[in-house]
């Protein structure tokens, strides 16, 4: 399984990027202990000049490499937490709608439509401006729009699964409808829903970066989006301050996407073989 997953070069590259990113995130407090937002040297040291500050410093003299490492933490935490929340909420709502049918289905799907028609970023922006920026609020803000995709897919899957004999069997045994929905049907509806996770993680990382860029990220954390925004004020004299976190974002999103595609593909191959 693992061998097949790593067979395509794209999946391999994606996985390598994710492993690197996770290592950065985990190692950040070890390699760069203390507050990454503290002053580490003179301001605006260019990269590759001073080997104690390999990527130089920003406008306030903060260590860019340290910020990059700690920023990886934020991006990963937000990406994973937002995806987990969206998938969980989406799967539950989709399962309820598909399994209950009738009015409940109608109501839940109209709700899904309503959330889907508002652009996700605007929804997140509005939510954070009202509730105030903190990491958990940012995660919730992103999940607020991202659950609709998983909900639709879960519902479609549940609609076909609920007609199968084993669901009738569970009813005959006298199982409670909620237990049938969540213990018998939902786990079997999950695979195609989980296939969405990479896209949601990538989207979440981008939305978080955009919020931080607009100054709506958690002010107590380093974020890549915040770094890009910081660098913007000195874009002409020190473009690397925006370029470095920008590249980190692009590479991360690409890595998540490639690894996700690889996982979906190998799952499809596995299904085809069995």
């Amino acid at each position, binding site marked *: 399984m693992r061998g097949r997953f790593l067979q395509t070069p794209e999946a391999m590259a994606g996985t390598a990027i994710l492993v690197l990113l996770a290592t950065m995130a985990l190692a950040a407090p070890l390699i760069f202990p203390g507050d990454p937002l503290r002053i580490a040297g003179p301001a605006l040291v260019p990269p590759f000049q001073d080997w104690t500050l390999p990527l130089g410093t920003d406008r306030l003299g903060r260590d860019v490499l340290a910020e990059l490492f700690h920023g990886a933490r934020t991006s990963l935490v937000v990406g994973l937490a937002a995806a987990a929340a969206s998938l969980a909420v989406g799967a539950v709502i989709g399962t309820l709608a598909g399994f209950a049918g009738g009015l409940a289905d109608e109501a839940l799907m109209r709700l899904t439509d309503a959330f889907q028609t508002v652009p996700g970023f605007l929804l997140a922006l509005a939510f954070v401006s009202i509730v105030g920026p903190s990491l958990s609020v940012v995660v919730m803000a992103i999940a607020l729009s991202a659950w609709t995709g998983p909900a639709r897919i879960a519902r479609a899957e549940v609609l076909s699964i609920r007609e199968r*004999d*084993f669901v009738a*069997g*569970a009813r005959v*045994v*006298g*199982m409670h409808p909620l237990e049938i929905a969540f213990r018998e049907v939902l*786990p079997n509806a999950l695979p195609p829903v989980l296939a969405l996770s990479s896209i949601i993680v990538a989207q979440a990382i981008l939305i978080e970066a955009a919020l931080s860029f607009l100054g709506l990220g958690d002010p107590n954390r380093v974020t890549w989006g915040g770094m890009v925004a910081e660098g913007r004020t000195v874009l002409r004299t020190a473009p690397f301050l925006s370029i470095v976190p920008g590249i980190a974002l692009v590479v991360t999103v690409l890595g998540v996407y490639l690894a996700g595609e690889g996982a979906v593909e190998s799952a499809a191959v596995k299904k085809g073989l069995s």
Partner: protein
Amino acid sequence: MAEHLLTVDGLAKRFRRGDSTVAAAEAISFHIDAAETLALAGPSGSGKSTVARLLLRLIEPDAGSVTFEGENWLALEGAPLRTHRAKMQMVFQDPLAAFNPRATVARVLDDPLRIHRIAPRAERPRRIAGLLERVGLSTDLAGRAVHEVSGGQRQRVAIARAIATKPSLIVLDEAVSALDVSVRGKILELLADLQRTDGIAYLFISHDLGLVRVFAHRVAILDGGRLAEQGDARAVIDAPQSAVGKALVAATPKLHGFTGQDAS
């Protein structure tokens, strides 16, 4: 008149198909006594499964009444219905489709024991082993995934699940049709044995009149959602009165028996 275990009167169900409707069941009336086997035979699409699904309240009828164990079975809803389901169980044709693809044998048998509070948690593994033994399976099978055991074993697990709640009626919808002949004979022997020891009644759905003749006490023949004739299994099959009965008998190449056992 003595009370029957199950009395079905005027049961009807129409399905929508495009703009029109088809009568999958119409004016169906029959009864089953305790420890009796009534076969429901008929060509494909004649409404056999529809009658089974109506009885098990998997679909709701348009008309008719069902009295089961002296109760108005169709009036039961929600929690009381779930409780009463213990007494009427079903075994499906395709034993693979009838189980959650993720379930283990132990979980399949644990469900009825847990839901109907038949045994406390600590005692359930022992009960599960007892059920497996009762249907002639090794207790080692408990930990296996349902899709990892053979078709014949899986159908035995289905029977074990059905008898876990000590039902008085089991609906067998083509329960042996998918099995090869030798396995089929063994399963039918098991069912006959359960009927003898526990007094379970069966609604035995099959299109195989050879099987029906040796396994069932009485037979009802369906055609296009209506009952064409019913009566003593041998009498009807040896001398069918209805056109569909004659056609079914003619289509049965050789009225074969399953090894040894007879329902009588």
